[in-house]
C-alpha cells in the first residue's frame, strides 16, 4: 500500500494534528482527545451542533467545523464510530450551559454510541437534544425510510441548521428545521473504482478494479455487493440515471426549488464533477425544476474511491437564505 502514514495506530491522531495546524484560525484539537472544536466558541446560549463519526471520510466532518456550521466533531478510528464515552467527553469539554444538538448519521455504530453519550449527558444535567439523519435511497425502500443510511446530504443540514443556530434560534427551532431538511433530502451514489483501507491495506470495492463497470447505490464503507454493476455510461446518461431515481423517490416535481450537492467519493476529478454537474443541471432544467444553489467537491469521501453521490434538497426561501448565509470552516467560507 502506498499511502502516507507513520503507523496504523496513529493515523487518526497524526491526521488531526496536521489538520488543526493547517486551520488554526478556525479549529482546535481538544487536548488528549480526537475532538475538533471551533477555535472561537459560539456565544453562550446559542445551540451548539455536535457530531461523532469515523475517520477516513475527510474532509468530512472536521472540514465543516467552524462558524456557521458544526461546533464540535468527535472523530473515531477509521470507518468506526467513536465510543459513547469519547462523544460525551467532547460534549463535556465544550459545555457552557448552552443547548447541545447531537446530530447522528444513521449507521449502527454511530447511533449506538450517540445514544450512550446522549443518555450520559442528560444524566449529568446537560441540555442536550439528538436528531438522526438518513438520506441514502439505495440503502432501504421508501417504506423503511428510517432504516436508510445517512450520507452526503448531511451537507444541507450542516449548513442550513448551522446558520440557524449561529443566528440564535432555539433548540426546538433547530430540530424542526433539521427535520424539514432531512425530509426534503434524497441522495444516491455510484462507485467507479476500488480503494484501500488505510489501516489494513486491504482492498475495498475490488470488483470495480480493471473493468469499465460502475456500481450504483454503494455505501460509504464498501457495503456494496457488486451485484448491480453496469457499464460506465456517458455523462448525460449518468446524470439521467441518478436523476430519475432521485426524482421518483421523493418525488420532486416541476417548479420545485432544489439545492444540488455533487459529492466526490475521494478521487473523482474536478473535471468530472464539473461535467457531471453540467449534465445534471440540464436534466433538472428539462424537468422544469429550478436549481437555486449547488456545489461539487470531494467532501464526504471513502479514501481514494472514485465515484460520486448526488444529494438534492427542496427548499423554501428561509432555507435558501440559511444556505447562503455566511460561514467559515476549512471546506467552505461564505
Amino acid at each position, binding site marked *: 500500500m502506498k499511502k502516507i502514514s507513520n503507523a496504523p495506530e496513529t493515523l487518526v491522531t497524526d491526521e488531526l494534528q496536521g489538520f488543526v495546524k493547517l486551520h488554526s484560525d478556525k479549529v482546535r484539537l481538544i487536548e488528549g482527545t480526537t475532538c475538533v472544536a471551533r477555535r472561537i466558541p459560539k456565544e453562550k446560549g446559542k445551540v451548539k451542533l455536535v457530531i461523532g463519526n469515523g475517520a477516513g471520510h475527510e474532509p468530512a466532518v472536521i472540514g465543516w467545523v467552524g462558524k456557521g456550521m458544526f461546533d464540535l466533531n468527535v472523530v473515531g*478510528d477509521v470507518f*468506526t464510530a467513536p465510543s459513547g464515552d469519547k462523544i460525551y467527553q467532547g460534549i463535556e469539554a465544550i459545555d457552557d450551559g448552552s443547548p447541545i444538538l447531537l446530530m447522528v448519521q444513521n449507521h449502527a455504530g454511530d447511533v449506538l*454510541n450517540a445514544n450512550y453519550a446522549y443518555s450520559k449527558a442528560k444524566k449529568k444535567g446537560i441540555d442536550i437534544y439528538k436528531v438522526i439523519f438518513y438520506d441514502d435511497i439505495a*440503502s432501504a425502500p421508501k417504506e423503511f425510510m428510517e432504516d436508510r*443510511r445517512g450520507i452526503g446530504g448531511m451537507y444541507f443540514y450542516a449548513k442550513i441548521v448551522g446558520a440557524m443556530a449561529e443566528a440564535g434560534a432555539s433548540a426546538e427551532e433547530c430540530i424542526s428545521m433539521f427535520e424539514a431538511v432531512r425530509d426534503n433530502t434524497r441522495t444516491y451514489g455510484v462507485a467507479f473504482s476500488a480503494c484501500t483501507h488505510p489501516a489494513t491495506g486491504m482492498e475495498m470495492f475490488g470488483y470495480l478494479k480493471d473493468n469499465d463497470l460502475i456500481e450504483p447505490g454503494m455505501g460509504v*464503507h*464498501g*457495503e456494496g455487493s457488486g451485484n448491480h454493476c453496469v457499464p460506465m455510461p456517458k455523462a448525460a446518461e449518468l446524470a439521467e440515471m441518478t436523476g430519475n431515481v432521485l426524482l421518483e423517490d421523493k418525488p420532486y416535481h416541476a417548479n420545485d426549488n432544489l439545492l444540488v450537492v455533487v459529492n466526490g467519493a475521494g478521487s473523482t476529478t474536478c473535471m468530472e464533477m464539473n461535467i457531471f454537474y453540467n449534465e445534471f443541471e440540464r436534466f433538472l432544467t428539462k424537468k422544469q425544476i429550478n436549481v437555486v444553489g449547488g456545489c461539487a467537491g470531494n467532501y464526504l469521501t471513502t479514501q481514494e474511491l472514485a465515484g460520486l453521490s448526488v444529494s438534492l434538497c427542496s427548499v423554501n426561501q428561509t432555507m435558501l437564505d440559511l444556505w447562503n448565509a455566511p460561514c467559515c470552516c476549512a471546506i467552505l467560507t461564505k
Partner: protein
Amino acid sequence: MEELTLASFVKMEEEICDTVISQQEYLCKLDSYVGDGDHGVTAARGFRAVREMLHTQEHKTIAQVLSRSAELLMQTMGGAIGPIFGSIFSGMADVAEGKNVLACSDICAMLRRGLDQAQLTGGAKEGDRTLIDALSPAVRQLEQDVQKGETLPAALKNASQAADQGVENTKQMTARKGRAKFLGEKSKGYQDAGATTLSIVLRAMVDYCAKS
C-alpha cells in the same frame, strides 16, 4: 478445573485476549467480504487494551476485572461492536458481583446476562446474522449442561461447539443488522465476523480450562 478463582479468571482472560489478537488478519478477511474489512483491527484494538489492563493493574475481584474490561472494550473498539462487547462483559460483571470463585453455573448465568445485555444494546435477534447467533446457542447449551451437572471443561467445550455451529449457520443468513444488512441476500455465503470473534473467545476459554 471445576472452579475459577480471581487469579485463574485473569489468566483465562489473558488467553482470550491473546487468541483474539492473533486472529486479527483472519477476522479482517471475513469482514472484507461484506464490509470494510477492519473488524479484526477493531477487535484486536479492544482486546489489546484489556490485556494491557490485566497486566498492569491490580485486581480485587472478578467483577472488577470484568467491568474494567467492559469499559475498555466499549471505549477502544468504538463502532457498533464496542457497545455490544461492552454489554456482554458488563452483564457478566453484574452477575459476578460478590463472587470470589466461579462455578459452571455462575459462568452460565454470567453469559446469559451478557447475552441479554448485548441484545438490549444492539437490538439483534437470533437469525439477524450477528454475534448473537454464536452466543445464544452457546448459552442455551451451557444451561442444559448445568442442569445435567456437567463438569466446567466439558460444559464449556459443548458451548463452544454450539457457538461454532452458530457461526457456521450465519453463512446461510441474510444480514438484518450492521453494515452487512445493506447487502441483503448477497451477505449469504459468508460467515459473520462478529460471531466468529465471539466463538474465538469461547474457544479460548475452553483451551484455558482444558490445560489448567
